[in-house]
């Protein structure tokens, strides 16, 4: 018992902080429909403000009040107004991408505003952190632990009073149950939801300020981990119950310490503790899903917004009308039946933008093989490798609508395997790439089987948890990622042909990219693509038509994991070695955000995203740190713009070009009518005046 207390008591402050996060997440999710992953970043921003103010000689309590009660809600309200309010009824992807982007960008932006990273260890908000105030049994309780617990108790007390005894609390409880029902009763749900945002942002800020002293340094990383624990707590609360989320968060904080205490020290214990959220998510997510259906009005959803509609269809009505109707049986139909349909777009109309894309690509390839300097070529080659990984997302998220936050993990796995097999077994690297892809696909099946009963947000969270598990258990293993040491991946050779030099390797990469693109295109245009379109719009109707939705999903997930694995292996071979850092879970999030912004619905989108990502990487590593921060700002702004154009930058640009061209054509026809008379009144006597133009 004493031993248990020894382990459990130090877990309480963590539990308190996790609980605050979990409650805040549930609060905003239910009140505004957005599962705000940027919460971790909000916590960081407040923590940073707190420590910076103290460094500027503010008293600790004042810094705490400003950080928690002013800066926290300010950031929250800003995000709500600028962003989240607009996407309340959008599809899960459209809701998730901005919050993921902000999770990455916001801390960087805050660091720029703060000027410099504070270099003092974050102090506790009240009391002496180190002093032992009392003993629980034999366990000493420090001022830090005491202050965190006390602050949490106060917040929970305030919440209880607010919810039980005030009118706005009653309204908030109603909104949490059913926003639509509450609106019908004459309550302004928007106002209530804004209040919920303020409240939850305060909680995020408090969690950040309380958590900061638990670490010796302020690192955004720790706050992302905090977020994941909070997510696990929210899932225990089934996304809907505030008390359960509170208890869940507390239990996780205590549980992780007890867990780590009883396990023998070493890699297993160190790895298992951070993967606890994965286990929790797997166990509790299926329960959460059923609870979500409880809104009594959920069966009469309002018509989806334009944002949602344009983001949900891989090939929406608009693109079909724009002449891109590969999904239609039109041509077969007409050939077979011999009937032409009025107004149907011809299958042969090519988009002018597609021609342009091919031309640009060709110029780039020719340049790469002739005059481009070696370091540029290397960047371009990285772009090609990433394009393959992005294509795996085109297939999975773009076509099938499943959100994966562990694509980098699969890529890493493929890369590590290719390297390990080459180093230990002497397998040729090209075969190693295939093997890496197959292994990633196999692991994809293993991940898919328990998680793919879920869809949308729960699936995304489950894959996030898997990415964490890969980071902490798979990658440190000497048989897989070999921890910090990483794995070397040699350049391949096929018989007499060596791909060791930059240009041959670039050609090889292009071939792999072409094959991958071919697979994605064939799947998308084929019967499977039609099935995927069907499942994405209505899983119910698809299965009612006889589509085995689950099998289809597992298949696509595995195929996508396999493609990512091949891309990772190619990247490893390009770089010569891979470290687990190149494929951490944050990378998965960044990859998804980048490709979503550029365009998830076309092969060109994946290729451009690859180039953009490789360029960004170069920019971040070679530019002075001040400009590297600007990259983060740009990234954040692009994330904001994503909610306006969820179809992706490329599709948006394509549509604009097409409109412009069409208008130009119309204008030209107007200016030079095919048969125009030179006289001031063309009138009905047109045939009499075929003069002028020819001369």
């Amino acid at each position, binding site marked *: 018992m004493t031993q248990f207390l020894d382990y459990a008591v130090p877990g309480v402050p963590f539990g308190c902080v996790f609980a605050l996060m979990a409650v805040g997440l549930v609060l905003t999710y239910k009140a505004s429909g957005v599962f705000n992953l940027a919460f971790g970043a909000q916590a960081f921003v407040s923590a940073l403000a707190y420590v910076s103010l103290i460094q500027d000689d503010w008293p600790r309590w004042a810094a705490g009040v400003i950080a928690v009660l002013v800066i926290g809600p300010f950031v929250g309200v800003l995000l709500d107004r600028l962003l989240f309010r607009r996407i309340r009824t959008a599809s899960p992807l459209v809701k998730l991408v901005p919050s993921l982007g902000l999770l990455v960008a916001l801390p960087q932006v805050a660091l720029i505003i703060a000027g410099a990273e504070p270099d003092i260890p974050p102090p506790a908000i009240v009391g002496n952190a180190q002093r032992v105030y009392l003993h629980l049994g034999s366990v000493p309780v420090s001022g830090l632990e005491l202050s965190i617990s006390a602050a949490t108790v106060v917040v929970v007390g305030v919440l209880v009073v607010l919810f039980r005894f005030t009118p706005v609390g009653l309204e908030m409880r109603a909104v949490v149950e059913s926003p639509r029902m509450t609106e019908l009763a004459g309550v302004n749900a928007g106002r209530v939801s804004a209040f919920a945002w303020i409240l939850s942002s305060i909680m995020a800020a408090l969690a950040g300020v309380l958590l900061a002293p638990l670490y010796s340094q302020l690192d955004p990383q720790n706050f992302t981990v905090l977020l994941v624990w909070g997510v696990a707590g929210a899932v225990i609360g089934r996304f809907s119950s505030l008390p359960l989320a509170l208890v869940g968060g507390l239990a996780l904080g205590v549980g992780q310490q007890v867990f780590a205490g009883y396990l023998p020290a070493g890699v297993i214990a160190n790895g298992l503790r951070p993967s606890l959220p994965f286990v929790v998510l797997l166990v509790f997510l299926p329960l959460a899903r059923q609870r979500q259906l409880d809104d009594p009005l959920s069966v009469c959803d309002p018509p989806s917004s334009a944002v949602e509609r344009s983001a949900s269809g891989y090939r929406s009505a608009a693109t079909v009308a724009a002449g891109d109707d590969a*999904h239609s049986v039109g041509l077969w139909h007409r050939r077979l039946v011999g*009937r032409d*349909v009025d107004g149907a777009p011809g299958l042969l109309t090519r988009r002018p933008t597609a021609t342009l894309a091919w031309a640009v690509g060709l110029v780039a390839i020719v340049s790469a093989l002739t005059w481009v300097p070696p370091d540029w070529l290397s960047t371009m080659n990285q772009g090609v490798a990433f394009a393959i990984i992005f294509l795996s997302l085109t297939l999975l998220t773009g076509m099938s609508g499943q959100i994966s936050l562990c694509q980098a993990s699969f890529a890493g796995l493929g890369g590590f395997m290719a390297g390990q097999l080459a180093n230990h077994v002497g397998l040729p690297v090209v075969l190693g790439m295939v093997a890496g892809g197959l292994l990633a696909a196999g692991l994809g099946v293993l991940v898919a089987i328990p998680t793919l009963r879920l869809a949308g947000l729960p699936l995304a969270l489950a894959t996030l948890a898997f990415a964490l598990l890969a980071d902490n258990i798979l990658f440190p293993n000497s048989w897989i990622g070999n921890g910090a040491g990483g794995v070397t991946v040699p350049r391949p050779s096929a018989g007499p042909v060596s791909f060791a030099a930059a240009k041959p390797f670039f050609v090889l990469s292009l071939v792999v990219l072409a094959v991958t693109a071919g697979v994605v295109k*064939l799947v998308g245009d084929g*019967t499977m693509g039609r099935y995927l*379109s069907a499942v994405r719009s209505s899983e119910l*109707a698809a299965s*009612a038509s*006889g*589509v085995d939705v689950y099998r289809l999903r597992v298949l696509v997930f595995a195929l996508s994991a396999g493609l990512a694995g091949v891309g990772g292996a190619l990247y490893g071979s390009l770089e010569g070695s891979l470290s687990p850092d190149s494929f951490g879970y944050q990378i998965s999030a960044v990859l998804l955000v980048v490709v979503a912004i550029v365009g998830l619905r076309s092969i060109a989108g994946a290729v451009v995203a690859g180039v953009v990502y490789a360029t960004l990487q170069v920019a971040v590593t070679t530019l002075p740190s001040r400009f590297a921060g600007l990259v983060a700002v740009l990234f954040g702004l692009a994330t904001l713009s994503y909610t306006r154009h969820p179809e992706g930058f490329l599709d948006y640009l394509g549509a604009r070009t097409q409109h412009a061209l069409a208008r130009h054509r119309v204008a030209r026809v107007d200016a030079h009518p095919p048969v125009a008379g030179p006289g001031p009144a063309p009138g009905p006597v047109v045939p009499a005046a075929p003069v002028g133009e020819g001369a």
Partner: protein
Amino acid sequence: MTGAGALLVASGISKQYGGIVALDHVDLAVGTGEAVGIVGPNGAGKTTLFNCLFGLEDPDEGTVVFGDRRIDRLPVWRRSRLGIGRTFQRMELFEGMTVADHLLVAEQAASGTVRVWRDFLHRGGPTPPELHHVEAVLDLLGLADLADRPVDALDLGHARLVELGRAMMGSPRLLMLDEPSSGLDVDDTARLGRILDETRRSTGVAVVLVEHDLSLVESTVDRLVVLNFGTVLATGGVAEVLADPEVRRAYLGTTA
């Protein structure tokens, strides 16, 4: 309607939500080619019964036999492939897809012969028989002119027909229609009735129809089942059941 002619036999279906009894030992049999209407006040358990038969919900008790197979543990898509087509009260269409594609997806999925590797070899296209069947159903429903339109652009009446057409693909032996007339005006409903009649005549498909529009029910079904509070209140010929005083009290709200 039991014995050799029975196509679907559900026996003793019960379903509870918490303490609420939605279905209490309901029996339902549908003969080959027979059209059965299910009526009853809101909350009588009609849609729950549909969902239990189709596999969207698991009944707490009871068995469902289709043809000579027990299907009550099979997933939805298996039941669909065995030959049950279904429409939904709330429209479930595939956004952005054309009318013809809706039918094609259903036709290919129902046969279960699609293989992924065919897609990789660019051999995943529809076969001529599949396309002919799509064509035939389009003609039957009068949708041939709209075949290449995306469904998003259709009015509700035509959209309901697309749903019906999708349910008819793969030549099912049983069609389950959940309030197909809801939201339709009198003309659209009449057209729907005519099309249902023609479909039954030409394919011999059995129909289970949940419907509030009594004119459609009367013109379509051979037999009526009245549900009330999760139990079967009455069953028999349409005129006879509707004349039943107990039915009139429970459903039509008249004290006869």
